[in-house]
């Protein structure tokens, strides 16, 4: 197929590059890369785009920000704080806000982009979790994703701490308190981290180095690795006509996806810029500089720290103990570090736990519909509920004030809800999934309810069921087998070695629990139009088909 030849300049450039890198074939292959179409695949894109925005706006802010805890008396443009003693970090943040044109805007873009970055990471991760896209061969990319999520939260906390305003200093104080709680080495870690006692003069310069160099560097490397792996393994796709475990269907990188993704980048940036323009965020000039002796009530961290804040609030002191006079404040350790460990450890371990339970060693390119993995979906819903409740508990003083409830009552509510909520969420979600599975089987077997009522010659009224579209049939038939045959015996009646012993029995039990309620589609044949119970004649079915 011949087309217009490339312009001379472009050909020259192409040849120049190809002479040196031999890229024609690789280049074409990569430009032909297919991206499956689904809105949920854009969540990761939002994360990528907000990260790019963070890098660019962050560089701008470093041009003026002075990461020093040196004491100065402010005499800048902002009248209300003139003559007030503060750190140079805080003073330079005021300078960016009130003396640098566009400084306030870029600060707000940076902050909003950070919130949206972490939010889109979380939602992207939930999508991958609920659709089973983390399964073989993509477990390693899942682990990289968990690492990105972890670092993003730490990066956000450190960035929030830099302006040295009152709430940010309090965040550093809490960080210091959690460090101190670590048995044996806590005081050493804290002294080394802070260069002495709290607050000292070292912590902001050190957090600054971590925030603008070390962590973004690692994040960038991890994001690049995430993309290279994704590019190499290709995306998962949802079930549909023509989409199989061996073939991906979607929009090619060049020219269509590049334009679509470019447009989406501008949309993402526009939303963040719009928020930064019209929705005030972190007005540090209203908070005043940090002093270790003052605080305001109703302090709220950035949203992604809310779950830690909530955990610290509702976790009781009942488990604190002392060994030979040495204190182990579990009330700080468990929520402060255990909560993080549980969240990130659980996320990282899940693909391997699930693969162990199900014994599934196959490659998966077609994503699960969440209903078809009801136990996983239920566990995910339980996790989301637990996270959401702890996150809300981080605002229990606001809830208490807004709804005029006793503060301690809110604490008790969350202490109980955090145990009951996830259990209820698991059961309800799993039941919903199973109900959807039954409906799927119904539709597959009998077609969908057309809403047309027909009177038979006998006088009986029936509702006409119509045949689902081939695409629907395809999607419904993509359901994996209901049960895992894990405790099967070989032809001699001997159980497999993996089934023996305590570990094997545990695994068999878990596998049973994992799949026992699944609705079997075995033997279900797609609706063919000859079911007696709805009485539609074959000729009517034909007319439906033709339509």
């Amino acid at each position, binding site marked *: 197929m011949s087309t217009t030849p490339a312009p001379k300049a472009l050909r020259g450039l192409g040849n120049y590059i190809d002479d040196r890198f031999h890229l024609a074939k690789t280049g074409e292959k990569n430009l*032909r890369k*297919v991206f499956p179409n689904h809105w949920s695949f854009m969540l990761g894109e939002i994360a990528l785009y907000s990260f790019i925005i963070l890098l660019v706006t962050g560089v701008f802010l470093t041009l003026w920000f002075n990461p020093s805890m040196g*004491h100065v008396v402010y005499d800048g*443009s*902002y009248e209300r704080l003139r003559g007030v003693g503060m750190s140079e970090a805080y003073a330079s943040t005021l300078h960016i806000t*009130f003396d*640098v*044109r*566009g400084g*306030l*805007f870029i600060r707000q*873009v940076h902050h909003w982009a950070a919130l949206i970055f972490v939010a889109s990471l979380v939602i992207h991760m939930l999508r991958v979790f609920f659709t089973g896209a983390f399964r073989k061969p993509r477990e390693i990319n899942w682990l990289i994703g968990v690492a990105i999520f972890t670092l993003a939260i730490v990066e956000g906390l450190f960035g929030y701490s830099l302006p040295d305003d009152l709430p940010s200093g309090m965040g550093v*104080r*809490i960080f210091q308190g959690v460090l*101190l*709680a670590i048995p044996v080495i806590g*005081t050493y870690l*804290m*002294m*080394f981290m802070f260069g002495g*006692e*709290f607050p000292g003069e070292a912590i902001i310069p050190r957090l600054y180095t971590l925030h603008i160099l070390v962590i973004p560097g690692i994040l960038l490397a991890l994001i690049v690795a995430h993309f290279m792996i994704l590019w190499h*393994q*290709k995306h998962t796709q949802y079930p549909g*006509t*023509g989409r199989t*475990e*061996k073939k991906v269907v*979607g929009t090619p990188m060049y020219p*269509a996806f590049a*334009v*679509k993704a470019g*447009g989406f*980048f*501008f*949309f993402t*940036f*526009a939303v963040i810029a719009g928020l930064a*323009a*019209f929705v005030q965020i972190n007005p540090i*000039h209203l908070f005043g500089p940090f002093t*270790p002796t003052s*605080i*305001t*009530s109703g*302090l709220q961290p950035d949203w992604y720290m809310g779950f830690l804040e909530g955990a*610290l*609030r509702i976790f009781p002191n009942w488990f*604190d103990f002392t060994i030979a*006079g*040495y*204190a*182990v404040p579990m009330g*700080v350790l468990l929520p402060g570090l255990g909560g993080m460990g549980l969240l990130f450890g659980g996320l990282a371990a899940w693909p391997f736990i699930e693969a162990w339970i199900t014994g599934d060693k196959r490659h998966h*390119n077609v994503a699960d519909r969440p209903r078809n993995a009801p136990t996983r979906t239920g566990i995910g819903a339980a996790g989301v509920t637990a996270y959401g409740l702890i996150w809300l508990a981080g605002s229990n*003083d606001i809830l208490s004030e807004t709804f005029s409830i006793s503060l*301690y009552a809110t604490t008790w509510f969350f202490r109980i809800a955090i145990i009951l909520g996830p259990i209820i969420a698991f059961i309800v979600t799993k039941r919903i999934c199973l109900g959807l599975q039954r409906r799927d089987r119904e539709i597959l077997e009998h077609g969908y309810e057309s809403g047309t009522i027909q009177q038979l010659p006998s006088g009986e009224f029936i509702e006409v069921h119509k045949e689902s*579209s081939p695409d629907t049939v395809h999607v419904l*038939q993509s359901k*994996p087998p209901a049960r895992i045959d894990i405790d099967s015996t070989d032809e001699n009646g001997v159980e497999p070695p993996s089934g023996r012993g305590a570990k094997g029995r545990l695994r068999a039990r878990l596998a049973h629990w994992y799949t026992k309620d699944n609705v079997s589609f075995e033997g279900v044949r797609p609706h063919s139009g000859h079911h007696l119970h709805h009485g539609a004649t074959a000729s009517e079915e034909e007319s439906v088909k033709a339509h």
Partner: protein
Amino acid sequence: MTDNNTNHDSGAGAEGPDRVIGTPSPAGESLAGATATAHERRHEGPYPAVETHPRPEEMQRKGEKLAALWFLVAFLAGIGFFVSYFSFPPNAEGEPAIADPQTAQYANMLMGGTIALALFAIGAGMTVWARRVMPHYEVSSPYDELPSSPEEKGSFSDFFMQGAHESGFTKRPLMRRTLLLAMVPLGLAPIVLLRDTGPLPGDKLKHTMWEDGMRMVVEGTDRLIRASDLDEVGGMVTALPESHDPEHGLSLNDQAKTVVLLIKMDPADFSDEMTQQQLDWTHDGIVAYSKICTHVGCPAALYEQTSHRILCPCHQSTFDAANGAKVVFGPAHRALPQLPVRVDDEGYLVAAGDFSSAVGPTFWDAEKGD
């Protein structure tokens, strides 16, 4: 690799009646399908005709106009950004200056609003381009078979082990082990180099600068406190030690450790559970506790006089001021340290020593003596 959705493949060729050119050919890239030939005749696109669904010419024409309109909006909004940037000089250059918070807000809305509009318009134009002008593609491409063939794996494995063997790494254990040994100190060196990032804790965290006879001032001022200043029962004052360096005042480090809540209550309200020593540390109903919460170190700044409760607004640890600041609710474990107070010859309130225990968040040896 096993494929548990084998029924996909059988269904792939079944094109839906409403998808005449919508379904990718079952044969993938090799376009032998008879359905393709009709469309393929004059097709000059980069992808096979069955995978390319061009938009109607009318739609493309309108799409071009609409996209161009969006791009023009973006251009004008971009110009608008420059106008708004130069309309708001920084303070030195006169009015309306962004040094005024209200003006800064307006400037922010104008600058941010124009930029957001420009970005949005570019995004909208590109989306119109992709959805109205460019064909809709549904290209299929095979997933790569990920595991290598047994031959490739075997070849690699042989190659690798032969190389390891020939290099001597496996055959010469002395050399290998000494190399690994040599790495250990070098690996530890960076950790050791971090030693001077801070001092050792020693007993620094257990003591503060408070000592017997030290006067106190109201936090944020230089006003010395007399016992009579707290005469009103139920009063609460945040206090710091008097600084002898009037120019710089107390360092933040010292403030963070020494800050106290002075609370005046009816001496009869003190709980029976308080020890005689704790009562001796009070003066005429005035009791002093560290303001730094023993949970994770926020200032426990709220005091309710009717119930004598001190509340930390961060995580809501609650302490009973009438009972040695014992924890009555919340995550904190230790009571707030008590500062012994007395009155000196001139009637000023002074400390009678250091705190009863370590100030601030609980740490490993917080409850150990020196």
